[in-house]
């Protein structure tokens, strides 16, 4: 009964729009080109090109800001801790919280910048599609595509690693209360997390930049399932290797100066960074993927 009603309603719906379809001449894409009536006004052309140019620059800057913000979350407190002669409690407490606040503000500003860049690009597109500067705008904007994509991948990967390290320090160590206490007092757990996160984020940045450039130049094709599976397998492998053989942390190398044989540690960190980049890229592409290709 319900199925009959649905079929009947759909049949009615099938005829619904055919009585009021817009004529094909009403399509904007088929409207006569402005060139037929004369060249575009130079001011409009300049505005369109400048808008697209500025939006691309803004987008690029916002990616860079996100990357800088993610790195600053871990890098700046660490740098301050190195510069201090001793881990004086009140000084470190104030500095770390201040730097964390600055980092959050930087990331927030970057997000705002990204939103503004998207809005600016829409504006530029609206202007540009109405006139000749579309080709010029694309030419200008194209130069930023490679760097923008590479930075986007790197910043997302670095962010994922920083968040992962912080979550690990809070949750998986099961010492979150102590962790918070030592965050203010700069204990070894925080120090280890900070140093490892800096190294891992740096590795992810390098890997992400390399992959991004390769993708932008068409030398690599993103296959979300394969990349995700490979990243997951690599991640499991690095965790197994890292825990089975106790490769230690980079704190030992960069802070304590001990344990010079860190080849395995570097391999594990690079592998972990590559795993995160692969999974992050696969997820990002899978979520943005248009199921039916446009051509």
């Amino acid at each position, binding site marked *: 009964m319900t199925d009959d009603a649905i079929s009947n309603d759909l049949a009615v*719906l099938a005829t619904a*729009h055919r009585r009021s379809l817009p004529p*094909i001449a009403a399509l904007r894409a*088929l409207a006569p080109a402005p*060139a037929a009536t004369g060249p575009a006004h130079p001011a409009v052309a300049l505005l369109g090109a400048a808008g697209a140019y500025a939006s691309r620059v803004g987008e690029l800057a916002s990616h860079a800001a996100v990357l800088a913000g993610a790195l600053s979350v871990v890098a700046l407190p660490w740098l301050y801790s190195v510069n201090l002669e001793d881990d004086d409690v009140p000084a470190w407490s104030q500095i770390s919280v201040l730097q964390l606040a600055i980092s959050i503000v930087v990331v927030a500003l970057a997000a705002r910048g990204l939103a503004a860049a998207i809005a600016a690009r829409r504006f530029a597109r609206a202007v540009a*599609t109405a006139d000749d500067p579309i080709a010029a705008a694309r030419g200008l904007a194209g130069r930023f595509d490679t760097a923008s994509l590479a930075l986007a991948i790197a910043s997302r990967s670095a962010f994922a690693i920083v968040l992962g390290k912080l979550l690990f320090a809070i949750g998986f160590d099961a010492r979150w209360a102590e962790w918070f206490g030592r965050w203010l007092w700069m204990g070894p757990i925080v120090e280890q997390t900070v140093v490892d996160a800096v190294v891992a984020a740096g590795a992810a940045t390098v890997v992400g930049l390399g992959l991004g450039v390769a993708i932008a130049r068409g030398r690599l094709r993103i296959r979300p399932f394969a990349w995700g599976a490979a990243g997951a397998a690599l991640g499991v492998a690095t965790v197994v290797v890292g825990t089975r053989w106790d490769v230690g942390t980079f704190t030992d190398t960069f802070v304590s100066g001990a344990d010079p044989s860190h080849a395995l540690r570097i391999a594990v960190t690079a592998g972990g960074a590559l795993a995160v980049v692969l999974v992050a890229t696969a997820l990002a592409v899978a979520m943005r993927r*248009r199921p039916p*290709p*446009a*051509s």
Partner: protein
Amino acid sequence: MEAARDRLRRLLEPVHDKAVAFARHVSRSRSDGDDLYQEAVLRALAKLDTLRDDALFRPWLFRVVISVHRNRCRRAFWRRFVPFGDGTAGDGSVDERDYRSHDWTPAAAHAATRARAALATLPADQREAIALFEIEGWTVDEIAALYEVSASAIKSRLSRGRAAMRAHYEAASNGTPALGARVRGQSP
């Protein structure tokens, strides 16, 4: 560009009606559907040089429409968090005035509105499959070729879409909104 426009116009003539009707069927309102179609044709114009065989224009155009539709669905998700304050954030409702015209009976307008309200509760892939199969008369194999998936995948979408519409109808007849309408209920 002018030559591309002429080519697009020539290719578009035979499929224009079907394509714009499809865009309206997968959208929440007639105006949204028209906007979707305008955007799809603009994109088709920009990518027309990638179409090598004119005989494949119909599935190619529908792929573009579907692609634009998916993009708009994603944008619609984020629009929910933007307080416009004018009721345009999208509540999945269907305006019955879309179907009121001088040659429409109230019963037909109500039937069309009811069907569109049920369609609006479906996920985008099921809504597109239902629109193509049940409304536009495509075969399962044609739809499968369009999406480049298996026929069984399309049958599954159709079956799940039908089941969701059935649940919506039964819930509406009981006076309670279907779960899908409460949870999703969004389309651009």
